């Protein structure tokens, strides 16, 4: 469990993270999404105590991170792939990290096996490909059997097979009741991996919602009817937008097709077309993050509460 409250980080005049609050719960994969420079890495660095917050509070499993008896056991993390001395072998790299917290050698060999690096464990890490470096970083994150697993863009540099592998790994960890927090700027990948999303833009929280809602809320429906005007009157309601495209055509957002069809039937209105356009996840994501740039801060936080 990670609890972030009113977190702010300024670098000089740049506000990288701006009054950000969210929780990452155990038992599911939470995706941390946002465009480049949104403040994802900075937030993760603050969770680990690497950057000092300008304001705000973070607890990991109920305690401040510096107060943990075995920090590596509370949070296993990967922030930078290939953060390894190029001349040291993968196994020695992990042995040294393991030693700090008393993780036995047997466990080092176990995580090497989990990430599939056993055969190259004694080779210089400098010779590793980007994907192998990423796997070594993940091995380091799993080393001390952590309650929370936090990975910054773990899919970077992995081949398609590797991406499927990490997806299954993360979901498996969540099933074991662990807290899994993974950043990405690829919504399509996150939609397959995560159950819950925390979306940020320009350091602010844009949305904190289950993946299913992100797809649900973005549906737009095209309706054609000879009595389009009468139909519009039946559909219009709070939170529903009805746009008249031509005399016999409407664009409706905020209502599922089934409901539109039912209301038309109840009103005795004949329909010629009823077409849902499920906006792609990418589009939903772009719309959301695009909004954050345009909306004033107060409106952004209203949206947040609504979501």
């Amino acid at each position, binding site marked *: 469990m990670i609890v972030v409250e009113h977190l702010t980080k300024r670098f000089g005049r740049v506000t990288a993270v701006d009054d950000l609050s969210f929780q990452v719960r155990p038992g599911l994969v939470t995706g941390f999404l946002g465009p480049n420079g949104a403040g994802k890495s900075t937030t993760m*660095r603050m969770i*680990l*105590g*690497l*950057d*000092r917050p300008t304001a705000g509070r973070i607890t990991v499993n109920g305690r401040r*991170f*510096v107060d*943990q*008896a*075995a*920090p*590596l*056991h*509370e*949070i296993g*993390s990967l*922030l*930078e792939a*290939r*953060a*390894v*001395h*190029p*001349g*040291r*072998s993968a196994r*020695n790299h992990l*042995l*040294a*990290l393991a*030693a*700090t*917290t*008393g*993780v*036995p050698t047997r*466990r080092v060999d*176990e995580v090497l096996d*989990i990430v599939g690096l056993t055969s190259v464990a004694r080779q210089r890490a400098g010779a590793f490909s980007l994907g192998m470096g990423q796997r070594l970083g993940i091995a*380091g994150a*799993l080393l*001390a*059997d*952590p309650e929370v697993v936090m990975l910054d863009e773990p899919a970077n540099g992995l081949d398609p097979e590797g991406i499927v592998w990490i997806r299954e*790994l993360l979901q*498996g*960890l969540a099933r*074991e009741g*662990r807290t899994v927090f993974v950043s990405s700027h690829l919504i399509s990948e996150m939609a397959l991996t995560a159950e819950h999303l925390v979306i940020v833009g320009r350091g602010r929280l844009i949305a904190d919602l289950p993946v299913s809602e992100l797809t649900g809320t973005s549906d737009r429906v095209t309706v054609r009817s000879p009595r389009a005007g009468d139909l519009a009157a039946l559909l219009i309601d709070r939170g529903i937008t009805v746009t008249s495209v031509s005399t016999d055509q409407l664009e409706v957002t905020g209502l599922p097709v089934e409901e539109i069809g039912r209301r038309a039937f109840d009103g005795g209105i004949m329909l010629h077309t009823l077409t849902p356009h499920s906006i792609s996840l990418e589009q939903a994501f772009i719309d959301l993050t695009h909004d954050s740039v345009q909306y004033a801060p107060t409106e952004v936080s209203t949206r947040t509460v609504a979501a």
Partner: protein
Amino acid sequence: MSSILSDELAAVDAPGPADGPAPRPSVLALTFRGILRAEWIKLRTVRSTRMTCFAALVAVIGLGALAAAVSAGDITAPEGPRHAGGFGSATDPTAISLSGVLLAQLIVAVIGVLAVTNEYGTGMIRAYFAAVPTRLPLLWAKAIVVAVVVTAGSLIAAVVAFLVGQSVLGSGVDLGDPGVVRAVLGAALYLGVISVLGVAVGALLRHTAGSVAVLFATLLIIPQLLVAILPGDWSTAITPYLPSNAGSALMTVSGSDTLLAPAAGAAVLAGWVGLLLVGAAWRMRTTDA
């Protein structure tokens, strides 16, 4: 058990496994002993450590023997002052045999610097800060491990250099003579201290090239420069307190009026390293990694 992670690991504060014959949980906790072990593993598993340690040994023994040979008249010295700004005096046989320290100090300074800057350069330091969020134990452990390794290696090198040097010189001085053991130990301690100075400067600057440049300047260039530009009495008042000259005081048997007494030299060295370590600790604690 089909858990992705180990069922056998448990932190001190975690409840034991609820079911089944519990495997003996190995207790996970961050300890200073563990951090020391980690630093020792890191130091010995890169080739640059082995190479620099070997180079330091060769420097102490080889240059010591060479200086002894020059002094004994077996080899003709080039024109010019033989020990300008360096260690030892032309007349102290012990100091002559230990003059390889002049070069070795630069090598051990680099060992100390690299132990820190390599980790900043690769980003590995951040993985360690995540494991040791209070950070400073990492600095202390690094300083201790580097100091122990360098001092131990230097002691062996200094004893060998002394024995070889005296036999080349035919001086008749041996380890039992007054002040000799202190000088040989002093050489080893001095190199240990300089390696810690390397750790401290590395942690202050976080970059290899800058740290190495600062240390070279401090150990080699500044002492000579001060002698050259300061009025004579200023120079005699200030230069003995420079780290390299304080180290010289430890290694010379027949004292000299340009050097401090051995105990004072040791105190001055301790002061330098203490000051820089405090600075390094402050920077490590307060600056974002």
